[in-house]
């Protein structure tokens, strides 16, 4: 009896499935993939994967669904009948699978015309002709901003924008907004213990110790981004700032230098690695990791999988190193019941380490949402329309609406006012940029390896010396690979080093 029922169920379910499918609910098809257009379309369709700003998205799952982008698109459609703008969502697969999905689409020429993606990813595939070089268009005026002569002038932070140029010197993205990190702290908890935001590192550690003794998690962090990426970049910068002038062997272009003063580009980094600046014999580099290891006891225990937001919001964590995006949650969470504030990582002084110099901490944030144009615009003959739409988007009114609604970033368009809640982050962003972004300079394999061993070291797997020895060995390998791949010639650097009287190890 139930056998018959079972088969009946199977048939019924298939039939239902077919009907549901035919009813065509849900996402409309994006249009037939190329190369088979049956009739030349009378309308132009622009597709965008806008990331966070996608209409209907509820970022951080708090607040109202976003709609600014849809409004802006509607306005554009009104101005240009015959153009239709549609938004899509890119799948977010754990581990950055988004890049894989996108590459499949690009290879097939069916990617959306405008894509939100970190421009560093774009740089990896420049030779494939998938991305449109925006330089020529940036030299032209933006018709939507009265009095504008050159599109470049529309950007608030031109230095940052120019620093987003790829290795070939061309800009492939429009950085709409800026993101920055900061330490959120629970004012109520601080008040109850008589604490206030620290002025220097020593005070910072003392505060954390007090918090820990009182039973709180002093600083909530996660392993993947905060520990391996941010911590390393900031503390390295703090301890190497003194000698930055000496080891910065090649100044960037004038534009880059305005934003990336003293930045160690991958080529410089490889050279310095080969010359032993970051090996176990360099006490300055050693100090970086000693400080990080000594900091560990004040972090959350579980670094692999922390649900950080939860720890801070339920007041188990007194401080939380997050970023401007968290403002949205803090402003919109209906259950929030404590007073909070923001401060930035305090400078390290000679009291903590002889290599410190008390310089103000560097910034590790930068461009947030970056919109690039894909080969689809070219294939469909819509490039002019797409560029025009981007110009429309970068007017002060549009940018203010778009970025302000989300309350997660501050706009990179001149004249667009930022959300007042984000003022603290804008202040932080005025600091200088960090010396090097370790996990964005060499290969993916290096990143994975480095993260792996940082986590092992930080969790007590082995000691400082072992870690430095191991780290040196794979850094050398990564540098060799990178040098080989790009065929670097270091004769110029050798000359500069000799001039400055530097030997390896940069004491």
């Amino acid at each position: 009896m139930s056998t018959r029922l079972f088969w009946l169920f199977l048939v019924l379910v298939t039939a239902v499935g077919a009907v549901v499918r035919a009813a065509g609910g849900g996402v409309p098809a994006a249009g037939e993939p190329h190369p088979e257009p049956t009739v030349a379309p009378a309308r132009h369709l622009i597709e965008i994967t806008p990331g966070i700003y996608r209409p209907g998205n509820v970022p951080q799952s708090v607040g109202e669904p976003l709609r600014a982008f849809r409004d802006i698109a509607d306005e554009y459609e009104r101005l240009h009948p015959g153009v239709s703008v549609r938004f899509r969502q890119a799948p977010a697969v754990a581990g950055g699978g988004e890049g894989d999905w996108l590459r499949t689409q690009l290879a097939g020429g069916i990617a959306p015309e405008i894509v939100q993606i970190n421009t560093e990813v774009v740089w990896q595939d420049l030779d494939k002709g998938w991305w449109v070089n925006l330089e020529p268009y940036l030299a032209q005026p933006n018709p939507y901003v009265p009095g504008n002569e050159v599109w470049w002038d529309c950007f608030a932070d031109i230095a940052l924008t120019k620093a987003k140029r790829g290795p070939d010197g061309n800009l492939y993205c429009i950085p709409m907004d800026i993101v920055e990190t900061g330490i959120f702290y629970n004012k109520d908890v601080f008040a109850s213990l008589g604490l206030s935001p620290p002025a220097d590192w020593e005070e910072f550690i003392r505060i954390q110790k007090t918090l820990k003794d009182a039973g709180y998690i002093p600083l909530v962090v996660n392993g993947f981004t905060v520990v391996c990426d941010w911590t390393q970049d900031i503390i390295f910068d703090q301890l190497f700032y003194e000698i930055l002038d000496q080891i910065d062997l090649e100044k960037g272009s004038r534009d880059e230098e305005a934003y990336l003063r003293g930045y160690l580009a991958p080529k410089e980094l490889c050279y310095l690695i080969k010359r032993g600046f970051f090996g176990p014999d360099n006490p300055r580099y050693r100090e970086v990791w000693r400080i990080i290891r000594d900091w560990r006891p004040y972090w959350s225990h579980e670094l692999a999988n922390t649900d950080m937001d939860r720890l801070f919001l339920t007041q188990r964590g007194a401080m939380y190193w997050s970023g401007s995006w968290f403002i949205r949650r803090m402003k919109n969470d209906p259950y929030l019941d404590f007073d909070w504030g923001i401060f930035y990582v305090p400078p390290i002084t000679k009291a903590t380490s002889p290599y410190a110099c008390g310089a103000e901490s560097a910034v590790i944030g930068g461009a947030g949402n970056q919109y690039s144009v894909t080969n689809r615009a070219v294939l469909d003959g819509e490039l002019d329309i797409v560029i025009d739409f981007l110009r429309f988007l970068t007017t002060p009114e549009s940018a203010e609406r778009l970025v302000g609604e989300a309350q997660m970033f501050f706009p990179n368009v001149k004249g667009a006012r930022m959300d007042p809640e984000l003022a603290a982050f804008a202040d932080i962003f005025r600091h200088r940029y960090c010396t090097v972004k370790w996990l964005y300079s060499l290969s993916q394999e290096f990143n994975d390896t480095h993260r792996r061993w940082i986590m092992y070291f930080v969790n007590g797997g082995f000691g400082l010396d072992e870690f430095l020895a191991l780290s040196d060995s794979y850094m050398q390998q990564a540098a060799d690979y990178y040098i080989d791949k790009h065929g670097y010639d270091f004769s110029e650097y050798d000359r500069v080093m000799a001039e400055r009287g530097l030997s390896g190890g940069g004491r």
Partner: protein
Amino acid sequence: MRRNGRSGRSGDGWRGWLFVLPTLVLLCVFCYYPAAFALRMAFARWDIGGQPQWVGAAHFVTLMRDPVFIAGAKNLLRLLAFALCVGLWMPLLAAELIFHAATERRRYLLRAVFVVPMVVPLIVVWLVWRGIYSDAGAVTAFLELVGKGHWIRGWLSDPDTALGALMFVGFPFVSGFPMLIYYAGLSNISESVLDAARIDGASTLGAFRHVHLPMIRPQVRLLAILTVLGVVQGYEAVYVLTGDGGPGYCTMVPGLYMYQNGFSYGKMGYASAIGLVMFVAILAFTLGVQRYLRGEAEEGRGPR
């Protein structure tokens, strides 16, 4: 031995092949060819987007000395031992308990309790265990309650506890499918045998050891093989819980290493070499299980 006169039919010949044909075609196109291609790549250096260059057995030599792979293999042996000692038997416990339930309706409901959770996807399981291992989670709360707060650590971050924490995910290790298989095996035992045991005054435990266990040997063998297959090939749980194989190589497994080489670093040739080694390992384990748990002599008993 031919008993029931086959009326001289010598064999089905081409008809047999005809029946198997659709399966064979599908397998050739979508399984054998890709597998052969992948396994051939084990002997080449092939980075995605480039051309393969033949390097013979170079990958295998590297593999034998590769600390990542060796660490992964060691972890795999530990995981396998755990799965075969604990994971293989917990479903049996559940099946036994259900088997002894009073009414058929109760038995059906109990079976449903263990079968329905099969639909829960890995992401949700991850959420559950993240909530348990987190600083604000169940384990921490419990330890603080019993005054052992100093034992608290990052369970998945600490090199000492990472693998153990990983193994423990999936507690109580009663999955629906194995439980059903054991249950069916138990249902298969004929009433007469069970009655005989009861009449002889066997206790529940005695009946279990001397009657049930031997009679469900085939099921145990089947599940042992499936367990080996699952554990050796598995990597999604590790990927979701620790992202990259834990602090250092504490939770690294060969499956994850293969995935990383193939998809993150684009070293398809090396990944294929790892796959080939895994294939051989699975084959070896399976044959081992077959031999160790040999029950009735099924081999050679063909159709009649």
